[in-house]
């Protein structure tokens, strides 16, 4: 709860305390000795092993690798969507291993945002309602106002009452970005955010993502196989065959 308040504090623009804050805040995601195995029938398939890395608050971070390298699995594990076999993940100073499904849900709702490759808007809700869902889950009474404002920020103020099927792919992803930021997450996971979009639209989405990220002081974790996109982040984690092959830290952009 305390962490959340501080990040809001940051968001409100009191950036003078940033460095001090980062000192005790330090790592927002901490992954140690991670291993994940899937069993299909009698076959054991190890998807991830010996994964160790940290992400600092407000960093931008890319996980790259060829198809089947375990990128998306790693993202799912880090975001608390699934549990690992061995190892330890600490997200926003909370060790995930001890949490129940409902506690994980609460953690995601309060501190995590998601952007998916195929947008994953709820088809039965309007753009506005989609963006408001995370806030409404928190019981926020101003959910619709905040959502309207965010949709304005992503340039969709005219389309807030449209259903996803009435929006183009780029517009849908913009709604998804607005939704991802609506709960003021500390960390945002994006899974191939441009994967289903043409280059020009993809670039616009990426810009939007980074701009909002900077404005709100969020940590951004992107899974992608688009190296050009990865180049825009401060850290690049390369995966191959379920192992880390390289961790490139790029201090300045």
């Amino acid at each position, binding site marked *: 709860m305390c962490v959340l308040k501080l990040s809001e504090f940051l968001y409100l623009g009191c950036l003078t305390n940033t460095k001090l804050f980062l000192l005790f805040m330090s790592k927002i995601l901490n992954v140690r000795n991670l291993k994940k195995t899937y069993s299909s029938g009698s076959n054991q398939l190890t998807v991830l092993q010996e994964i160790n890395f940290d992400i600092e608050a407000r960093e931008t971070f890319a996980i790259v690798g060829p198809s089947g390298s375990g990128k998306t699995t790693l*993202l799912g594990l880090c975001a608390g969507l*699934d549990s690992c076999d061995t190892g330890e993940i600490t997200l926003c100073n909370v060790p995930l291993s001890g949490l129940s499904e409902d506690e994980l849900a609460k953690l995601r709702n309060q501190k995590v945002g998601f952007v998916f490759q195929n947008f994953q808007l709820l088809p039965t809700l309007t753009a506005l309602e989609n963006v408001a869902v995370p806030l*409404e889950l928190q019981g926020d009474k101003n959910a619709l106002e905040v959502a309207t404002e965010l949709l304005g920020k992503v340039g969709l103020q005219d389309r807030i009452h449209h259903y996803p099927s009435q929006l183009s792919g780029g517009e849908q992803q913009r709604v998804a970005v607005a939704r991802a930021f609506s709960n003021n997450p500390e960390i945002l996971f994006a899974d191939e955010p441009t994967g289903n979009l043409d280059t020009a639209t993809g670039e616009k989405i990426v810009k939007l993502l980074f701009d909002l990220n900077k404005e709100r002081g969020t940590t951004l974790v992107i899974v992608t196989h688009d190296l050009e996109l990865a180049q825009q982040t401060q850290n690049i984690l390369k995966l191959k065959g379920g192992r880390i092959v390289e961790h490139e830290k790029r201090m300045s952009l």
Partner: protein
Amino acid sequence: MKDLHARSHSTAWRWLLKMAWRDGKASSKRLLLFVASIVFGIAAVVAIQSFGENLRQNMALQSKALMGADYKIDSNHPPKETVSKLMDSLGGYQSREISFPSMAAFSGTEATKLVQVRGIEGEFPFYGMLETNPPNAAYQLKNAALVDATVMMQLGLNPGDSIRLGKVTLPILASLKSIPGSNAVFSSIAPPVIIPYHFIEKTALVQTGSRVNYDFYFLDPNTDLEKLDESIGKVLDAEDADLDTHLSTSQRLGRRYDNFGKFLNLVAFIALLLGCVGIASSVQIYIKEKVQSIAVLKCLGADNRQVFLIYLLQVIAIGFLGGLLGTFAGVLLQQFFPYLLGDLIPVSFEVAVFPTVLFVGLLLGVVMSVLFSLNPLLGTLHISPLQALRVEGNQTKRKSKSQLFASAAIILFIFLFALWVLRNPLYALSFVLGIALTFLILAAVASLFIKLIKKYFPVGWHFPARQGVKNLFRPQNQTLILVLAIGIGTFLISTLYFTKDLLLAQAEMDAQANNPNLILLDVQSDQRQAVKQILTNAELDLTDEVPIVTMRLHAIKGILTNTIRKDSTSRINRWILNHEFRVTYRDSLIASEEIQQGKWIGQVDQNKGIIPISVSDNLARDADLTVGDTLTFNVQGVLMKTQVSSIRAVDWGRVQLNFTVLFPKGILENAPQFWVLSTHVPNEAASAAVQQDLVRDLPNISVIDLRQVLALVESLLSKIAWLINFMAFFSILTGLIVLLGALKTSKYQRIKENVLLRTLGAKGNQIFKIVMFEYGFLGLLGGFTGVILSLISSQVMAIWLFDAPFIPSWVPFLVLIPGIVLLVIFVGLTNSFAVIKSPPLSVLRKEVNV
């Protein structure tokens, strides 16, 4: 803190409701179809329930008019002195009646007719009306008769013609349309004729063996009838008389309709069950389609409970709406019942709306849809948020304990509902088992058909036919449930049809060939010769000649019946103590009898002490008798000591004279007795001719023509069948709704298939054919499954229940199956136009609103 918690709790609920509403709004068309699939079932249940409730209420309200008096004392003897004194102490009767069946002849026509002669004195009925045409006929004042309106119409009689009853001829003053306490069906064997009381003796029709009733009617609105029954009931019992109050009359009548109502209620419930099975499968698919959304919601932080509740709320809303609409429709529907049942209903019918019935409708709607959706709803708990990232997540398919619990809850609820309707746990259990068995067998037969078609796929057929069959097995198909729904409806209707066949076949078998079909009752000993002469003159053979001696029980196993009456712990059924037994004597058993215990003795010497008799199994059971027990009979003043030498099983179902007590030859030959003679007449004309001769010479003899009785049974059956057909139709209707739901559910998939086919060059005509074949097969599969199952069940009934050969009629095959196939094709085609006509582009753009 607590306050905060409470507030967040309430906002959480508000959000859930909002989500359920938003999500449901977008799928409203489909959800409305879910609603529709229970509406008909609920309408049927509510209609029956409400109708029964109304009937009960109307009977209670009109209970005095049903009897025409507050109470009556009746006996089949002239009242003994104690009874007369008792009646005086009650203030005396206001009206009295002597009634008995007799043949009547009419002026201007040769026809004769068995009627119920009712000689009435006084102002009876005190409540209700003697409805006559012309109205207000003062028959007592004018010394004239009122004759049943139907008889008047059948025989072409008019007021002013005359009726001859025994030695009395009276002018007919008016036709009798109704009299309190009787209705058309039950009085059509012997329709009523009302005459002034004092003519009864002059008819000279009251003789030995005549089944005469003496009724004394009381007008006494302030008496506590229950107390009266307590105080004088036993006294009257001892004197072979009975107290009958207007309350007991309406209760008795009510029970008669109750059983029929219960049966209809269960038929209606089956329609509802079908709708619910439809909902279950639709919700299953609905939830399957929502998997992605649910996973995303979980990613965004909704917990399992919240997701479950969003969809549960939708289902509750569906159930509530379905319950509301169904209840409304049911209340409307019941208005038609009086027209369907017509003169089967004994009271004038005013429809009221009962809150309990409305409550039951709503409750059924909500509970049934929630119970049947519980399984797919619980499935949402196992959807992992990970599925938002990976489209093909490995969903866990294990059946959790809660899903087993849901199935158990469904069975329990069906049982509870059956228990509520039937008020007997054993019957309710049998209903549940029967339903389970029927569904299982139907499902087994249907899946067998499906497997067979898959295995022996008609590869030689042309493309549209093959494609049509294949469409039945597309992924997420609802073929099995559709076959089940259509099959159950067909099963109900055709079983009904076959059962009617069976009943009529059995009755006809009894009336056939050499079986007697003309029964002459009340033939006095000295009239036998004359009757035989009349029959011989008409070239008819006497098939049977049965003597009847009436007697009452004096003592059972050495204990006087009077003593047993006072013993409240006695296990002996009371009817035995007061019953006037009609006993025959002969030296052999007949075809409908079979010895169960002991030994049959057919001939004894008159002076050899205790008389060996044979009793029927039901008498043995009700009187707690075994072989060797003694019974003392009072044979019109003479006490006869007998011993049970054998117990017989009797097939009462046969149209034949059967007896509970059978004496051997050699004892009763000289007792006062009368005879029942029977003969076989080849046709209607012969029957009419011989009846005329009999009435002219021997007016006290009653003649029953079994062919008329058969015609009556047939008309009664077809009337009831109408109502059951009506109910079964609701199952078919529900089946069609489920079909509609299935069509809507698979719409997008089918549009895609058809567009693909069109892109590959299929003509509109070919696609049309494919769709037609698909629904044709579906209807055929369902209809055929239902008919096959009903053939089996009818065969089982034929063997176990009716003991008659069963030759199925062709109607279900020739009419029902093609009718259902056409209906299914019609529904299928009319709802597929969108699919057939949709432009290929819409699929490519994925913009179809499902």
